[in-house]
Protein backbone atom coordinates (compact mmCIF):
# COMPACT_ATOMS: atom_id res chain seq x y z
CA UNK A 1 0.00 0.00 0.00
CA UNK A 2 2.93 2.35 -0.58
CA UNK A 3 2.38 5.77 -2.07
CA UNK A 4 4.75 5.78 -5.06
CA UNK A 5 4.86 9.57 -5.29
CA UNK A 6 5.87 10.13 -1.65
CA UNK A 7 9.48 11.13 -1.07
CA UNK A 8 11.38 10.94 2.19
CA UNK A 9 14.03 13.29 3.48
CA UNK A 10 16.53 10.68 2.30
CA UNK A 11 15.22 10.91 -1.29
CA UNK A 12 15.50 14.70 -1.09
CA UNK A 13 19.06 14.37 0.17
CA UNK A 14 19.97 12.10 -2.77
CA UNK A 15 18.38 14.56 -5.19
CA UNK A 16 20.55 17.29 -3.68
CA UNK A 17 23.65 15.15 -4.26
CA UNK A 18 22.64 14.51 -7.88
CA UNK A 19 22.03 18.19 -8.59
CA UNK A 20 25.19 19.51 -6.98
CA UNK A 21 23.27 20.98 -4.07
CA UNK A 22 24.53 18.66 -1.35
CA UNK A 23 23.79 19.43 2.27
CA UNK A 24 24.04 18.08 5.77
CA UNK A 25 22.20 18.97 8.95
CA UNK A 26 23.59 21.05 11.78
CA UNK A 27 22.19 21.77 15.24
CA UNK A 28 22.77 25.07 17.13
CA UNK A 29 25.85 23.75 19.02
CA UNK A 30 27.31 22.71 15.64
CA UNK A 31 26.98 18.91 15.56
CA UNK A 32 26.75 17.54 12.03
CA UNK A 33 24.36 14.76 10.97
CA UNK A 34 22.50 13.40 7.94
CA UNK A 35 18.79 13.20 7.07
CA UNK A 36 16.23 11.81 7.77
CA UNK A 37 16.58 13.04 11.31
CA UNK A 38 14.25 14.47 13.93
CA UNK A 39 16.86 15.16 16.61
CA UNK A 40 20.63 15.65 16.71
CA UNK A 41 22.34 12.33 17.59
CA UNK A 42 24.89 14.13 19.75
CA UNK A 43 22.71 16.47 21.83
CA UNK A 44 19.05 15.84 20.95
CA UNK A 45 18.44 19.35 19.60
CA UNK A 46 15.52 19.42 17.15
CA UNK A 47 16.14 22.70 15.33
CA UNK A 48 18.36 21.29 12.60
CA UNK A 49 19.42 23.52 9.71
CA UNK A 50 20.62 22.45 6.25
CA UNK A 51 24.21 23.51 5.55
CA UNK A 52 26.13 23.06 2.30
CA UNK A 53 28.32 19.95 2.12
CA UNK A 54 31.89 20.64 0.89
CA UNK A 55 32.22 19.72 -2.80
CA UNK A 56 35.48 17.91 -2.31
CA UNK A 57 36.18 15.06 0.09
CA UNK A 58 38.88 12.50 0.78
CA UNK A 59 38.74 8.72 1.09
CA UNK A 60 38.93 7.45 4.69
CA UNK A 61 38.90 3.74 3.83
CA UNK A 62 37.94 1.58 0.86
CA UNK A 63 37.24 -2.02 -0.10
CA UNK A 64 36.42 -4.03 -3.20
CA UNK A 65 33.11 -5.85 -2.82
CA UNK A 66 33.46 -9.19 -4.62
CA UNK A 67 30.51 -11.05 -3.05
CA UNK A 68 27.54 -8.66 -3.33
CA UNK A 69 23.95 -8.64 -2.15
CA UNK A 70 21.45 -9.65 -4.89
CA UNK A 71 20.64 -6.03 -5.87
CA UNK A 72 24.31 -5.53 -6.80
CA UNK A 73 24.82 -8.88 -8.55
CA UNK A 74 25.63 -7.20 -11.88
CA UNK A 75 27.96 -4.63 -10.34
CA UNK A 76 30.63 -6.78 -8.62
CA UNK A 77 33.48 -6.35 -8.23
CA UNK A 78 33.11 -2.69 -7.27
CA UNK A 79 34.97 -0.26 -5.04
CA UNK A 80 33.12 0.97 -2.00
CA UNK A 81 34.52 3.75 0.17
CA UNK A 82 33.86 5.82 3.24
CA UNK A 83 34.87 9.42 2.52
CA UNK A 84 35.09 12.54 4.60
CA UNK A 85 33.49 15.84 3.55
CA UNK A 86 34.35 18.30 6.29
CA UNK A 87 32.50 17.18 9.40
CA UNK A 88 30.46 14.51 7.57
CA UNK A 89 31.39 11.06 6.33
CA UNK A 90 29.50 9.27 3.56
CA UNK A 91 29.63 5.70 2.29
CA UNK A 92 29.36 5.22 -1.47
CA UNK A 93 30.37 3.38 -4.58
CA UNK A 94 33.44 4.73 -6.34
CA UNK A 95 32.64 5.11 -10.04
CA UNK A 96 34.90 4.70 -13.07
CA UNK A 97 37.62 2.80 -11.24
CA UNK A 98 38.84 -0.68 -12.16
CA UNK A 99 39.10 -2.44 -8.80
CA UNK A 100 41.82 -4.77 -10.00
CA UNK A 101 43.92 -2.05 -11.59
CA UNK A 102 43.83 0.76 -9.06
CA UNK A 103 44.50 0.71 -5.34
CA UNK A 104 42.59 3.54 -3.65
CA UNK A 105 44.72 5.00 -0.87
CA UNK A 106 43.27 6.82 2.14
CA UNK A 107 43.39 10.55 1.45
CA UNK A 108 42.48 10.19 -2.25
CA UNK A 109 40.43 13.27 -3.29
CA UNK A 110 36.90 12.62 -4.54
CA UNK A 111 33.56 14.31 -5.20
CA UNK A 112 30.07 13.02 -4.43
CA UNK A 113 27.22 12.25 -6.84
CA UNK A 114 24.56 9.58 -7.33
CA UNK A 115 24.28 6.59 -9.63
CA UNK A 116 21.39 4.41 -10.75
CA UNK A 117 21.69 0.78 -9.65
CA UNK A 118 18.62 -1.25 -10.56
CA UNK A 119 15.59 0.62 -9.26
CA UNK A 120 17.48 2.84 -6.83
CA UNK A 121 19.64 5.93 -6.94
CA UNK A 122 22.62 5.41 -4.69
CA UNK A 123 25.34 7.59 -3.22
CA UNK A 124 28.46 7.45 -5.40
CA UNK A 125 31.88 9.07 -5.63
CA UNK A 126 34.17 10.16 -8.46
CA UNK A 127 37.91 10.69 -8.35
CA UNK A 128 38.76 14.38 -8.57
Amino acid at each position, binding site marked *: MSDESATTA*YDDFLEGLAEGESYFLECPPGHA*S*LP*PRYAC*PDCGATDLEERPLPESGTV*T*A*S*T*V*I*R*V*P*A*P*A*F*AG*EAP*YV*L*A*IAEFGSI*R*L*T*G*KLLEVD*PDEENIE*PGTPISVTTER*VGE*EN*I*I*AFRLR
Partner: protein
Amino acid sequence: MEDVHIAGVGMTEFGRHPDRTGRELFGEAAHKALVDANVPRDDIEALLYGNFMGGFAEGQNHQGPLMADAAGLTVPATRYESACASSGIAVREAVKKVRSGEADVLLVGGMERMTNNPTSVVTEALATAGDDLYESRVGLTFPGAYALMADAYFDAYGAERADLAHIAVKNHANAVENELAQYRNAIDVDDVLEAPMVADPVGLYDASPITDGASALVVVSESYAEANDLQTEVAITGTGQGADSLSLQSRESLIRTPAAEQAAEEAYEDAGIGPDDIDVAEVHDCFTIAEVLALESLGFYEPGTGYAAARDGETTRDGELPVNLSGGLKAKGHPVGATGAAQLVELTKLLRGDHVNSDAVTDAETALTHNAGATVASAVVHVLEVVQ
Protein backbone atom coordinates in the same frame (compact mmCIF):
# COMPACT_ATOMS: atom_id res chain seq x y z
CA MET B 1 21.24 -9.12 45.08
CA GLU B 2 21.09 -12.78 44.02
CA ASP B 3 24.18 -14.35 42.48
CA VAL B 4 23.59 -15.99 39.10
CA HIS B 5 24.79 -19.53 38.52
CA ILE B 6 24.92 -21.56 35.33
CA ALA B 7 23.16 -24.83 36.12
CA GLY B 8 23.36 -26.42 32.69
CA VAL B 9 24.45 -25.85 29.12
CA GLY B 10 23.61 -27.36 25.75
CA MET B 11 24.47 -26.84 22.11
CA THR B 12 23.74 -28.53 18.81
CA GLU B 13 26.55 -29.34 16.47
CA PHE B 14 27.25 -26.14 14.51
CA GLY B 15 27.29 -26.55 10.75
CA ARG B 16 24.92 -27.49 7.97
CA HIS B 17 21.60 -29.02 8.99
CA PRO B 18 19.65 -29.08 5.70
CA ASP B 19 17.14 -31.59 7.07
CA ARG B 20 16.32 -29.81 10.35
CA THR B 21 14.14 -26.78 11.04
CA GLY B 22 15.00 -24.10 13.58
CA ARG B 23 12.59 -25.46 16.13
CA GLU B 24 14.29 -28.87 16.09
CA LEU B 25 17.70 -27.26 16.54
CA PHE B 26 16.64 -25.16 19.51
CA GLY B 27 14.68 -28.09 20.97
CA GLU B 28 17.89 -30.13 21.01
CA ALA B 29 20.01 -27.40 22.60
CA ALA B 30 17.35 -26.70 25.25
CA HIS B 31 16.93 -30.40 26.02
CA LYS B 32 20.67 -30.83 26.48
CA ALA B 33 20.84 -27.80 28.78
CA LEU B 34 17.92 -29.04 30.88
CA VAL B 35 19.41 -32.52 31.20
CA ASP B 36 22.81 -31.04 32.07
CA ALA B 37 21.18 -28.82 34.70
CA ASN B 38 19.05 -31.59 36.19
CA VAL B 39 16.34 -28.98 36.78
CA PRO B 40 12.67 -29.99 36.43
CA ARG B 41 10.99 -28.43 33.41
CA ASP B 42 8.22 -27.12 35.65
CA ASP B 43 10.69 -24.88 37.46
CA ILE B 44 11.60 -22.91 34.31
CA GLU B 45 9.91 -19.54 34.61
CA ALA B 46 10.66 -17.95 31.24
CA LEU B 47 12.60 -18.27 27.98
CA LEU B 48 14.85 -15.47 26.79
CA TYR B 49 15.81 -16.24 23.23
CA GLY B 50 18.08 -14.68 20.61
CA ASN B 51 17.46 -14.86 16.87
CA PHE B 52 18.39 -12.49 14.06
CA MET B 53 17.10 -13.47 10.63
CA GLY B 54 14.20 -15.86 11.25
CA GLY B 55 11.91 -13.81 9.03
CA PHE B 56 14.34 -14.15 6.11
CA ALA B 57 15.46 -17.72 6.72
CA GLU B 58 12.28 -19.57 7.57
CA GLY B 59 9.60 -16.91 7.17
CA GLN B 60 9.28 -17.15 10.92
CA ASN B 61 9.16 -14.22 13.27
CA HIS B 62 7.63 -14.33 16.77
CA GLN B 63 9.94 -17.19 17.62
CA GLY B 64 9.72 -16.86 21.42
CA PRO B 65 6.60 -18.95 21.95
CA LEU B 66 7.59 -21.33 19.14
CA MET B 67 10.91 -22.10 20.78
CA ALA B 68 9.43 -22.45 24.27
CA ASP B 69 7.07 -25.01 22.75
CA ALA B 70 10.03 -26.70 21.02
CA ALA B 71 11.72 -26.97 24.42
CA GLY B 72 8.60 -28.55 25.93
CA LEU B 73 7.66 -25.45 27.92
CA THR B 74 4.68 -23.15 28.16
CA VAL B 75 6.27 -20.11 29.74
CA PRO B 76 6.52 -16.42 28.86
CA ALA B 77 9.02 -16.31 26.00
CA THR B 78 10.64 -13.31 24.35
CA ARG B 79 12.86 -13.02 21.31
CA TYR B 80 15.78 -10.60 21.56
CA GLU B 81 17.18 -9.22 18.31
CA SER B 82 20.45 -7.31 18.30
CA ALA B 83 22.01 -8.83 15.17
CA CYS B 84 24.95 -11.07 16.08
CA ALA B 85 24.68 -10.03 19.74
CA SER B 86 21.09 -11.29 20.06
CA SER B 87 21.62 -14.15 22.49
CA GLY B 88 24.44 -12.42 24.40
CA ILE B 89 21.93 -9.74 25.19
CA ALA B 90 19.30 -12.37 26.07
CA VAL B 91 21.80 -13.76 28.61
CA ARG B 92 22.33 -10.28 30.05
CA GLU B 93 18.58 -9.81 30.48
CA ALA B 94 18.36 -13.20 32.20
CA VAL B 95 21.14 -12.19 34.58
CA LYS B 96 19.26 -9.01 35.47
CA LYS B 97 16.02 -10.92 36.10
CA VAL B 98 17.70 -13.39 38.44
CA ARG B 99 19.69 -10.74 40.25
CA SER B 100 16.61 -8.64 40.89
CA GLY B 101 14.75 -11.61 42.35
CA GLU B 102 12.19 -11.53 39.56
CA ALA B 103 13.05 -15.12 38.60
CA ASP B 104 15.02 -18.06 40.01
CA VAL B 105 15.23 -20.38 37.00
CA LEU B 106 15.43 -19.27 33.37
CA LEU B 107 16.14 -20.88 30.03
CA VAL B 108 18.20 -18.62 27.78
CA GLY B 109 19.68 -19.29 24.37
CA GLY B 110 19.46 -18.67 20.68
CA MET B 111 19.17 -20.25 17.25
CA GLU B 112 19.88 -19.36 13.68
CA ARG B 113 19.10 -21.26 10.53
CA MET B 114 21.11 -19.91 7.61
CA THR B 115 22.37 -22.59 5.21
CA ASN B 116 18.90 -23.29 3.78
CA ASN B 117 19.32 -20.00 1.88
CA PRO B 118 21.73 -19.19 -0.97
CA THR B 119 24.78 -17.08 -0.06
CA SER B 120 23.28 -14.05 -1.82
CA VAL B 121 20.18 -14.13 0.40
CA VAL B 122 22.28 -14.57 3.55
CA THR B 123 24.45 -11.65 2.38
CA GLU B 124 21.31 -9.55 1.97
CA ALA B 125 19.95 -10.62 5.37
CA LEU B 126 23.23 -9.91 7.18
CA ALA B 127 23.42 -6.48 5.55
CA THR B 128 20.15 -5.57 7.30
CA ALA B 129 22.18 -5.45 10.53
CA GLY B 130 23.74 -2.26 9.15
CA ASP B 131 22.13 1.08 8.26
CA ASP B 132 19.60 0.49 5.49
CA LEU B 133 19.78 3.98 3.96
CA TYR B 134 23.47 4.76 4.32
CA GLU B 135 25.09 1.32 4.10
CA SER B 136 23.01 -1.50 2.60
CA ARG B 137 21.53 0.67 -0.19
CA VAL B 138 24.92 1.71 -1.50
CA GLY B 139 26.00 -1.92 -1.74
CA LEU B 140 27.96 -2.25 1.49
CA THR B 141 27.88 -5.87 2.64
CA PHE B 142 28.66 -7.08 6.16
CA PRO B 143 32.10 -8.44 5.18
CA GLY B 144 32.56 -5.15 3.29
CA ALA B 145 32.00 -3.14 6.47
CA TYR B 146 34.67 -5.12 8.32
CA ALA B 147 36.90 -4.76 5.26
CA LEU B 148 36.65 -0.98 5.63
CA MET B 149 37.65 -1.31 9.29
CA ALA B 150 40.56 -3.57 8.35
CA ASP B 151 41.68 -1.18 5.60
CA ALA B 152 41.67 1.73 8.07
CA TYR B 153 43.49 -0.40 10.68
CA PHE B 154 46.19 -1.45 8.20
CA ASP B 155 46.64 2.17 7.18
CA ALA B 156 46.94 3.36 10.80
CA TYR B 157 49.19 0.66 12.22
CA GLY B 158 50.95 -1.03 9.29
CA ALA B 159 49.45 -4.47 10.02
CA GLU B 160 49.13 -6.89 7.11
CA ARG B 161 46.81 -9.65 5.95
CA ALA B 162 49.42 -12.22 7.04
CA ASP B 163 49.16 -10.97 10.65
CA LEU B 164 45.39 -11.52 10.64
CA ALA B 165 45.79 -14.91 8.96
CA HIS B 166 47.36 -16.25 12.16
CA ILE B 167 44.03 -15.63 13.93
CA ALA B 168 42.17 -17.88 11.50
CA VAL B 169 44.93 -20.50 11.77
CA LYS B 170 44.72 -20.42 15.60
CA ASN B 171 40.94 -20.69 15.70
CA HIS B 172 40.88 -23.58 13.22
CA ALA B 173 43.53 -25.38 15.31
CA ASN B 174 41.37 -24.95 18.40
CA ALA B 175 38.33 -26.45 16.65
CA VAL B 176 40.04 -29.62 15.43
CA GLU B 177 39.04 -31.65 18.49
CA ASN B 178 35.72 -29.85 19.11
CA GLU B 179 32.98 -32.21 17.95
CA LEU B 180 30.43 -29.39 17.89
CA ALA B 181 32.51 -27.20 15.56
CA GLN B 182 31.69 -26.64 11.89
CA TYR B 183 35.27 -26.67 10.58
CA ARG B 184 37.59 -29.18 12.24
CA ASN B 185 40.39 -28.92 9.70
CA ALA B 186 43.73 -27.33 10.51
CA ILE B 187 44.80 -24.61 8.07
CA ASP B 188 47.99 -22.63 7.55
CA VAL B 189 48.76 -18.99 6.77
CA ASP B 190 49.07 -19.69 3.04
CA ASP B 191 45.58 -21.24 2.96
CA VAL B 192 44.20 -18.00 4.38
CA LEU B 193 46.18 -15.74 2.05
CA GLU B 194 45.38 -17.77 -1.05
CA ALA B 195 41.62 -18.10 -0.44
CA PRO B 196 39.30 -16.07 -2.68
CA MET B 197 38.65 -12.48 -1.60
CA VAL B 198 35.19 -11.55 -0.30
CA ALA B 199 35.79 -7.83 0.22
CA ASP B 200 39.43 -6.72 0.08
CA PRO B 201 41.33 -7.17 2.43
CA VAL B 202 38.87 -9.71 3.89
CA GLY B 203 39.28 -13.12 2.28
CA LEU B 204 37.07 -16.18 2.63
CA TYR B 205 39.26 -17.57 5.44
CA ASP B 206 39.17 -14.27 7.32
CA ALA B 207 35.40 -14.68 7.58
CA SER B 208 33.23 -16.80 9.84
CA PRO B 209 31.06 -19.24 7.90
CA ILE B 210 27.32 -19.45 7.25
CA THR B 211 26.05 -21.81 9.94
CA ASP B 212 22.97 -23.49 11.39
CA GLY B 213 22.90 -24.14 15.12
CA ALA B 214 21.41 -23.49 18.52
CA SER B 215 22.67 -22.97 22.06
CA ALA B 216 21.01 -22.86 25.47
CA LEU B 217 21.77 -22.37 29.16
CA VAL B 218 19.77 -22.86 32.32
CA VAL B 219 20.61 -20.03 34.72
CA VAL B 220 19.49 -20.12 38.35
CA SER B 221 19.77 -18.01 41.47
CA GLU B 222 22.35 -19.12 44.01
CA SER B 223 19.52 -19.67 46.53
CA TYR B 224 17.71 -21.98 44.14
CA ALA B 225 20.93 -23.89 43.48
CA GLU B 226 21.54 -24.33 47.22
CA ALA B 227 17.94 -25.23 48.05
CA ASN B 228 17.92 -27.87 45.32
CA ASP B 229 21.42 -29.16 45.93
CA LEU B 230 22.54 -28.35 42.38
CA GLN B 231 26.23 -28.80 41.70
CA THR B 232 26.68 -25.48 39.92
CA GLU B 233 30.33 -24.80 39.25
CA VAL B 234 30.26 -21.56 37.28
CA ALA B 235 28.69 -18.17 38.06
CA ILE B 236 28.08 -15.14 35.87
CA THR B 237 29.66 -12.41 37.98
CA GLY B 238 29.81 -9.52 35.55
CA THR B 239 27.66 -8.16 32.74
CA GLY B 240 27.96 -5.05 30.60
CA GLN B 241 26.50 -3.63 27.43
CA GLY B 242 27.68 -0.79 25.21
CA ALA B 243 26.41 1.10 22.20
CA ASP B 244 27.60 3.00 19.16
CA SER B 245 25.98 4.55 16.10
CA LEU B 246 24.67 1.91 13.72
CA SER B 247 26.55 3.15 10.67
CA LEU B 248 30.33 3.07 10.47
CA GLN B 249 30.41 6.44 8.72
CA SER B 250 28.93 8.19 11.77
CA ARG B 251 31.70 7.06 14.08
CA GLU B 252 34.67 9.07 15.17
CA SER B 253 37.02 6.19 14.37
CA LEU B 254 36.78 3.12 12.16
CA ILE B 255 39.43 1.30 14.17
CA ARG B 256 38.06 1.47 17.69
CA THR B 257 34.95 -0.23 19.05
CA PRO B 258 33.87 1.94 22.00
CA ALA B 259 30.68 -0.09 22.49
CA ALA B 260 32.86 -3.04 23.50
CA GLU B 261 35.05 -0.79 25.65
CA GLN B 262 31.96 0.39 27.54
CA ALA B 263 30.57 -3.14 27.88
CA ALA B 264 33.91 -4.42 29.19
CA GLU B 265 34.37 -1.58 31.64
CA GLU B 266 30.89 -2.18 33.06
CA ALA B 267 31.36 -5.96 33.25
CA TYR B 268 34.78 -5.69 34.92
CA GLU B 269 33.46 -3.23 37.49
CA ASP B 270 30.41 -5.42 38.07
CA ALA B 271 32.63 -8.45 38.75
CA GLY B 272 35.18 -6.41 40.69
CA ILE B 273 38.05 -7.49 38.44
CA GLY B 274 40.16 -6.15 35.58
CA PRO B 275 41.47 -7.46 32.26
CA ASP B 276 44.60 -8.90 33.91
CA ASP B 277 42.41 -11.29 35.91
CA ILE B 278 40.99 -13.02 32.82
CA ASP B 279 42.43 -16.51 32.22
CA VAL B 280 40.58 -17.41 29.03
CA ALA B 281 38.23 -15.58 26.64
CA GLU B 282 35.76 -16.23 23.85
CA VAL B 283 35.58 -13.14 21.62
CA HIS B 284 33.46 -12.26 18.61
CA ASP B 285 35.75 -13.10 15.68
CA CYS B 286 33.16 -12.81 12.90
CA PHE B 287 36.15 -11.63 10.85
CA THR B 288 39.82 -11.88 11.81
CA ILE B 289 40.05 -8.08 12.20
CA ALA B 290 37.13 -8.28 14.68
CA GLU B 291 39.21 -10.42 17.05
CA VAL B 292 41.95 -7.77 16.96
CA LEU B 293 39.54 -4.94 17.74
CA ALA B 294 38.00 -7.07 20.52
CA LEU B 295 41.36 -7.73 22.21
CA GLU B 296 42.09 -4.01 22.14
CA SER B 297 38.66 -2.96 23.40
CA LEU B 298 38.71 -5.45 26.25
CA GLY B 299 41.93 -4.01 27.65
CA PHE B 300 44.11 -7.01 26.79
CA TYR B 301 46.13 -5.01 24.24
CA GLU B 302 46.79 -1.34 23.56
CA PRO B 303 45.20 0.02 20.37
CA GLY B 304 47.37 -0.85 17.38
CA THR B 305 49.10 -3.84 19.00
CA GLY B 306 46.45 -6.60 19.10
CA TYR B 307 47.09 -7.72 15.52
CA ALA B 308 50.29 -9.49 16.54
CA ALA B 309 48.78 -11.47 19.44
CA ALA B 310 47.98 -14.68 17.54
CA ARG B 311 51.08 -14.39 15.33
CA ASP B 312 53.28 -14.14 18.43
CA GLY B 313 51.56 -17.07 20.14
CA GLU B 314 50.10 -15.02 22.99
CA THR B 315 46.46 -15.98 22.34
CA THR B 316 47.03 -19.52 21.10
CA ARG B 317 46.18 -22.59 23.15
CA ASP B 318 49.57 -22.48 24.90
CA GLY B 319 49.71 -18.70 25.13
CA GLU B 320 49.32 -16.44 28.12
CA LEU B 321 45.67 -15.71 27.30
CA PRO B 322 44.02 -18.42 25.17
CA VAL B 323 41.35 -16.79 23.00
CA ASN B 324 38.58 -18.74 21.27
CA LEU B 325 39.56 -22.20 22.45
CA SER B 326 36.21 -23.38 21.08
CA GLY B 327 37.36 -22.46 17.58
CA GLY B 328 35.62 -19.10 17.74
CA LEU B 329 33.06 -17.94 15.24
CA LYS B 330 35.64 -18.62 12.52
CA ALA B 331 35.86 -22.39 12.97
CA LYS B 332 33.17 -23.34 15.48
CA GLY B 333 30.71 -21.54 13.20
CA HIS B 334 28.49 -18.50 13.53
CA PRO B 335 24.76 -19.18 13.65
CA VAL B 336 24.19 -15.51 14.35
CA GLY B 337 21.43 -15.63 16.98
CA ALA B 338 22.98 -18.61 18.78
CA THR B 339 26.52 -17.25 19.00
CA GLY B 340 26.42 -15.13 22.17
CA ALA B 341 24.92 -17.87 24.33
CA ALA B 342 27.19 -20.46 22.68
CA GLN B 343 30.21 -18.52 23.92
CA LEU B 344 28.95 -19.02 27.48
CA VAL B 345 28.16 -22.68 26.81
CA GLU B 346 31.72 -23.35 25.64
CA LEU B 347 33.37 -21.33 28.41
CA THR B 348 31.26 -23.04 31.08
CA LYS B 349 32.50 -26.41 29.84
CA LEU B 350 36.07 -25.14 29.58
CA LEU B 351 35.94 -23.96 33.22
CA ARG B 352 34.16 -27.07 34.51
CA GLY B 353 36.74 -29.31 32.88
CA ASP B 354 34.36 -31.18 30.55
CA HIS B 355 35.33 -29.44 27.31
CA VAL B 356 37.66 -31.27 24.95
CA ASN B 357 40.07 -28.31 25.26
CA SER B 358 39.79 -27.95 29.05
CA ASP B 359 43.28 -29.36 29.49
CA ALA B 360 44.63 -26.14 27.95
CA VAL B 361 43.21 -24.11 30.86
CA THR B 362 43.29 -26.42 33.88
CA ASP B 363 43.92 -23.60 36.36
CA ALA B 364 41.50 -21.11 34.79
CA GLU B 365 39.07 -19.51 37.23
CA THR B 366 37.95 -16.34 35.48
CA ALA B 367 36.71 -16.08 31.91
CA LEU B 368 35.19 -13.51 29.58
CA THR B 369 32.79 -13.49 26.63
CA HIS B 370 32.61 -10.66 24.10
CA ASN B 371 29.63 -10.69 21.73
CA ALA B 372 29.11 -7.96 19.15
CA GLY B 373 26.23 -6.86 16.93
CA ALA B 374 27.08 -5.90 13.33
CA THR B 375 30.14 -3.61 13.27
CA VAL B 376 29.93 -3.44 17.09
CA ALA B 377 27.03 -0.99 17.28
CA SER B 378 25.91 -3.32 20.09
CA ALA B 379 28.31 -5.11 22.39
CA VAL B 380 27.76 -7.30 25.42
CA VAL B 381 30.46 -8.66 27.72
CA HIS B 382 30.12 -11.26 30.47
CA VAL B 383 32.52 -12.39 33.17
CA LEU B 384 32.31 -16.01 34.32
CA GLU B 385 33.97 -17.31 37.47
CA VAL B 386 34.42 -20.72 38.99
CA VAL B 387 32.29 -20.94 42.13
CA GLN B 388 34.18 -21.55 45.45
